[in-house]
């Protein structure tokens, strides 16, 4: 498959009263056409800021892309002018936000909110755009779209509003859809509907999805590949199968272990990751996970580990897999065993 997006060594920081926050500290990944990449991590790990950088929406003047390239098609997004960015946003990259309650304009009928994007990016008359908007509403599963077209957001339920947000994101047939926690604010039955909808649309249109989430269940359900982020760094990435079945990074082990297993008949004690994520005002010199890692060695605190490669897609940043590490096999098996 052809590559659609490549992010290379992206660094984003924010100036605040407390000093400089290094939110994203050298992130690299790529997305192929028609693929779903899930970015997983806790709040503050930089997953949303990465998405903002791809959309060219890092808030100015406090935020700044310090380093790196974002290659979308044949252009580098970090080098585009404001005007060029506006042409890409909404037409080639669509965005689905977390909170359907605040991402729609409450004073505009939803039809006009969908039509707005179409009119900006495509040479269609108002009537043609209206027709297209109604088709989009139908596509995302809203019944009676003609009537719904002229209703306001408050007349829609949360799940319906998220469908409208998806319709807006799809309005100009984007090649890439960035979905930032699209189901977090929704109930589990509605979440299932929205995930099915996203999968369905992806199959129909062969678009790529970058799905940002903290819910491993959602990842297991829809992702092709996964990038696990921690403290502004991608600590592990691989196919969904590799991440769930042979994870290599202790943080991934911890994440997988800390959710209860629905299928186990016995009541097991959860194994949490002790401690809390590091302060990104002064990020640690070594591995950011070292202070919470049960397998941490001296070197972990001192030096950032290199990227170790396990297969075509599977990478992890961890000293345990360095050839110089002692008793590495024992460590790794110890971690994996607890997983089962």
């Amino acid at each position: 498959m052809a590559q659609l997006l490549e992010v290379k060594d992206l660094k984003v920081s924010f100036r605040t009263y407390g000093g400089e926050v290094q939110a994203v500290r050298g992130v690299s990944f790529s997305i192929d056409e028609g693929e779903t990449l899930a970015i997983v991590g806790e709040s503050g790990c930089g997953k949303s800021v990465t998405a903002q950088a791809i959309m060219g929406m890092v808030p100015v003047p406090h935020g700044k892309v310090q380093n790196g390239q974002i290659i979308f098609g044949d252009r580098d997004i970090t080098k585009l002018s404001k005007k060029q960015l506006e042409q890409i946003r909404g037409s080639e990259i669509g965005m689905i936000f977390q909170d359907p309650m605040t991402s729609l304009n409450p004073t505009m009928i939803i039809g006009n909110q969908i039509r707005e994007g179409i009119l900006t990016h495509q040479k269609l008359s108002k009537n043609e755009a209206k027709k297209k908007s109604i088709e989009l509403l139908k596509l995302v599963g809203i019944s009676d779209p003609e009537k719904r077209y002229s209703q306001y957001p408050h007349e829609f339920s949360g799940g319906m509003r998220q469908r409208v947000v998806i319709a807006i994101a799809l309005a100009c047939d984007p090649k890439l859809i960035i979905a930032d926690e699209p189901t977090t604010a929704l109930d589990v039955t509605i979440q299932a509907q929205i995930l099915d909808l996203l999968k369905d649309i992806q199959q129909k249109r062969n678009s790529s999805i970058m799905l940002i989430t903290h819910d491993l269940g959602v990842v297991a359900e829809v992702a092709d590949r996964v990038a696990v982020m921690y403290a502004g760094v991608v600590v592990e990435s691989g196919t969904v199968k590799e991440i769930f079945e042979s994870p290599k990074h202790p943080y991934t082990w911890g994440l997988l272990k800390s959710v209860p297993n629905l299928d186990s008949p016995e009541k097991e004690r959860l194994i949490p990751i002790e401690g809390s994520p590091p302060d990104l005002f002064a990020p640690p010199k070594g591995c950011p996970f070292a202070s919470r890692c049960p397998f941490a060695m001296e070197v972990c605190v001192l030096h950032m580990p290199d990227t170790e490669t396990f297969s075509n897609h599977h990478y992890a940043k961890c000293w345990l897999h360095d050839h110089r590490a002692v008793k590495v096999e024992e460590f790794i098996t110890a971690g994996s065993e607890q997983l089962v």
Partner: protein
Amino acid sequence: MSENVLEIHDVKKHFNVGHKQVVKSVDGISFSIKKGETLGIVGESGSGKSTIGRTIVGLYEATAGKVVFEGKDISKLNRKGKREFNRKMQMIFQDPHASLNPRMRVGEIIAEGIDAYGLAKGKAKQDRVFQLLERVGLNPDHATRFPHEFSGGQRQRIGIARALAVEPSFIVADEPISALDVSIQAQVVNLLEDLQKEENLTYLFIAHDLAMVKHISDRIGVMYLGKMMELANSQTLFQDPLHPYTNALLSAIPVSTPKLRGTRERIVLGGDPPSPINPPSGCPFRTRCPSAMEHCTIEMPEWKEVKENHWIACHLY
């Protein structure tokens, strides 16, 4: 272990929303909780799960029905009895950011209840605050800090310490972990479990994360639009659910590993939950129920025990 600490009988809580409209948030719910047990309540937003929790704690006064705590109807308690009830029944809230007073120091927040009930004074009070902070995994030095200096997980620990300060026997936890990150959720759940064992606490655990509710609860109740649909042992409920709504709800849980993708037969519910202002006649779930019958539109099914300890409200059974 076998006596019921809490029994609620046909409790209703209706809210007047103006224009002569009434929201029946909780509409006739009965259940009981044994000492030392954890009862989980699940349901979608708007199902009334938080309202039932708040009614039990006494933050809301029930419109109809009885809440019986340790054998006494809480609406009939005298001043002294009410005060004692308020001490024994504590609550942990969802949002650790909104539920702590930002202008009070952590030590003051925790000591407030101790002062109100005169449980300890001076040095003894301070020792008790330090001991509580240590118990919930914080440092005694934290007592002089303000809530904004803490992370979400730490704030939730402060909320737990505050609830424990007055030596309660029953805790209503309303979505205590939904606002926390995955790796922190497990820490808080383990803490709640440890405390339950040590202090012999009884929990009412309200949440929408089904996997976590299953993990922590002995029994689980499923609510839909103000009504209890099914109540059973948590293993039974997950392995052998009877109510069509429970079935649909469980089938919507995302799979735990990609290997199982597509193995779970998903029951897709059409549409959205109806508005609680104008609920459907008969069974509230009938508008989305795959096995709805004509009879369902006429009459709300009776709340009955179909198997031992397995309660359900459905005309199918």
